């Protein structure tokens, strides 16, 4: 039983990271109906930005309290990733708006290749390990919970509430929802559609960068190929939860994290990704719109 709860905690941590990345996918998909394949690499880029900021702090300044260091890493990572995603949207996706559906998908795949290879070329192909930042561990009723797990879950919860507030309670969020429902009508009613879409990309990237920082803190290592596997799993999470739905993305992320850690704990670690993808296929076959998604209505 304790083992089970232990795995539950691990899965929840992993799921929080997936959930944060998944939100970026689901928002972009909701607003312009495009799979942003480069999003996983934006996550990796955020992790690398955090890594370099960490190195700057330790080499040039030194002796920065851990909380402050994490905060600076997170904020610089968010800014860098946001700037990258904004630029990518501007040069690679916006010119193709109104073109056929596969065109931005191809530029997104191209951008994903560009980002991972850019990091490989500029930062080198090797693993980048850092010393553990947060190493306290607590025993609660026989279950080991590390401080970093608590940090990840708490930060995820805080960011999600902020996000939920922005999308549901502010004029910006209203513009986003309007653009999502009907872009042309929103434009007619005075919503600056291009700006709204840019802001959506910026928000998604910022969350992905936080996830990247957390990933770096949790595993203590980052490498240029790290964008792909978490990216695909987060996208799977977004689809599983019902693409276009924010709570769905988080729920999907948590589910994927739980499936992964429970499968590795009870069956074999080799086939954990196979299990994840198979469950995705099964869910989609019986409920094609995902768990919380609205069913697509076909109008003729």
């Amino acid at each position, binding site marked *: 039983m304790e083992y089970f709860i232990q795995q539950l905690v691990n899965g929840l941590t992993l799921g929080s990271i997936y959930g944060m990345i998944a939100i970026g996918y689901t928002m972009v998909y909701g607003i312009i109906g495009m*799979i942003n394949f480069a999003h996983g690499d934006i996550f990796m*880029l955020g992790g*690398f930005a955090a*890594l*370099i*900021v960490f*190195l700057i702090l330790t*080499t040039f300044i030194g002796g920065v309290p851990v909380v402050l260091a994490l905060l600076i890493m997170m904020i*610089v990572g968010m*800014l*860098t990733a946001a*700037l*990258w995603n904004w*630029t990518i949207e501007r040069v*690679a996706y916006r*010119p*193709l708006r109104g*073109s*056929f*559906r*596969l*065109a931005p*998908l*191809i*530029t997104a*795949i*191209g*951008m994903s*290749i*560009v980002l991972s*290879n*850019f*990091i*490989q*070329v*500029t*930062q*080198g192909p090797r693993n*980048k*390990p*850092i010393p553990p930042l947060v190493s306290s561990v607590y025993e609660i009723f026989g279950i080991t919970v590390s401080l970093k797990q608590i940090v990840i879950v708490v930060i995820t919860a805080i960011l999600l509430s902020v996000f939920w507030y922005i999308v549901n309670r502010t004029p910006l969020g209203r513009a986003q929802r309007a653009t999502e429902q009907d872009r042309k009508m929103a434009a007619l009613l005075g919503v600056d559609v291009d700006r709204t879409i840019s802001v959506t990309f910026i928000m998604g990237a910022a969350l992905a960068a936080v996830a990247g920082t957390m990933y770096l803190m949790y595993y203590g290592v980052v490498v240029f190929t790290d964008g792909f596997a978490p990216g*695909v799993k987060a*996208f*799977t999470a977004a*689809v599983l939860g019902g*693409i276009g739905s924010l709570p769905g993305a988080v729920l999907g992320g948590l589910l994927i994290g739980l499936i992964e850690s429970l499968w590795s704990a009870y069956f074999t670690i*080799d*086939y954990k*990704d*196979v299990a994840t*993808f*198979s469950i*995705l*296929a099964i869910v*989609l*076959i019986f409920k*094609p719109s995902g768990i919380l998604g609205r069913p*697509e209505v*076909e109008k*003729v």
Partner: protein
Amino acid sequence: MANVASTTASAGSELTARALREAVFAGLITLGLFVLFVGLKSDQNIRNELILTQRWGLLAIFVAVAMVGRFLIVVYVQPRFAKRKAAKAAAPDVVKKDTFFTRQWPKIAVVMLLLYPPVIVSFVGVQGSLKWVDNFGIQILIYVMLAWGLNIVVGLAGLLDLGYVAFYAVGAYSYALLSSYFGLSFWVLLPVAGLLAALWGIVLGFPVLRLRGDYLAIVTLAFGEIIRLVLINWTEVTKGTFGVSGIAKATLFGIKFDASKDGFAALFDLPLSSAYYKIFLFYLILALALLTAFVTIRLRRMPIGRAWEALREDEIACRSLGINTVTTKLTAFATGAMFGGFAGSFFAVRQGFVSPESFVFLESAVILAIVVLGGMGSLTGIAIAAVVMIGGTEILRELTFLKMIFGPAFTPELYRMLIFGLAMVTVMVWKPRGFVGSREPTAFLRQRRAVSGSFTKEGHG
């Protein structure tokens, strides 16, 4: 007169001022993008700790290039483009003449391809031809064939498949495993590999038939990953990440390409060289690719091909006209998968070694990119796209003279995928409809007219 001159002068200075503003903006953006990644580099020292190396000079070059580039674009390139666009709008449409070359060029292309190996051999000799036939001939033709196969699924039936490489893998492993465990020959296993891949196409097709558009895309992606993970983890049969090596070579009517006394070289009194085998493989993949093209062209005229295209344009209309969408989708998947399987078994026989490394998602993405960049559905466009994208990245390997400019530590191969990705984005933004954007309709009423790509809709899965 003086008045006119002063307005142009003020317009010019206004343009310069705007260009300067935009250049500064571009410089700032570039600085923000690259300051962490180009300005600093994380390196391991001897104790395996990360240290920072500073490269501010390189960063300054990046920013300067962005600023100068942006300035020149705003001042010179944009006005010129605007002028050309205006001139084009004013000029009447030019009707393209139907010359001998435009009518017959597929045949001309095939003849040129047939003559390619002898011409290369006569120029650079038997041994020197290896690189040209293998890297530029076979490599490109494999991708042409794969893209033509995927074109049946994506371009004709409009089903977005992100896991096409799975069928390629099935074909490759079918040949590799069946030949090393049972000793069967390539010519027996080629159709078997195709059939097995087609079978997997149907197995995958059944559950995903209910899915539309992007859901289909993600499930096919997942399927591709599952196949790869199974190949990695099922070590008893597939030998996992080590891969299967020592795969038997193909034979030409029972003649082996080896050093034995009834081998190809000995039989024809030729000096022993692996180039002959490569030339044989070149013709083999050419034949397979042409078979794919031929089948695609013929199928498009058959009811099933028309059903595919109808499915791509409008699934609901298709269903209301009594077309069985289930069998239509399944045949598209199976046919596309079959050609993937053929290409896969060819890949195995060419490399003599297969490992799961060769069947990553990136391969699916590259094949899909070739299909879309070629202008979905156009066989010619896809072939052009394959030559440009694959040939272009192969050429990068040859650019050794760059070492003289950037120093001996410079390796062009490192930049291969980076440039490939940039090319994908640039070509797509520049020509969103692909290299050949117009389609000849398969079925037409009275008059044949080319339909501009912008009028044809892509399928929604």
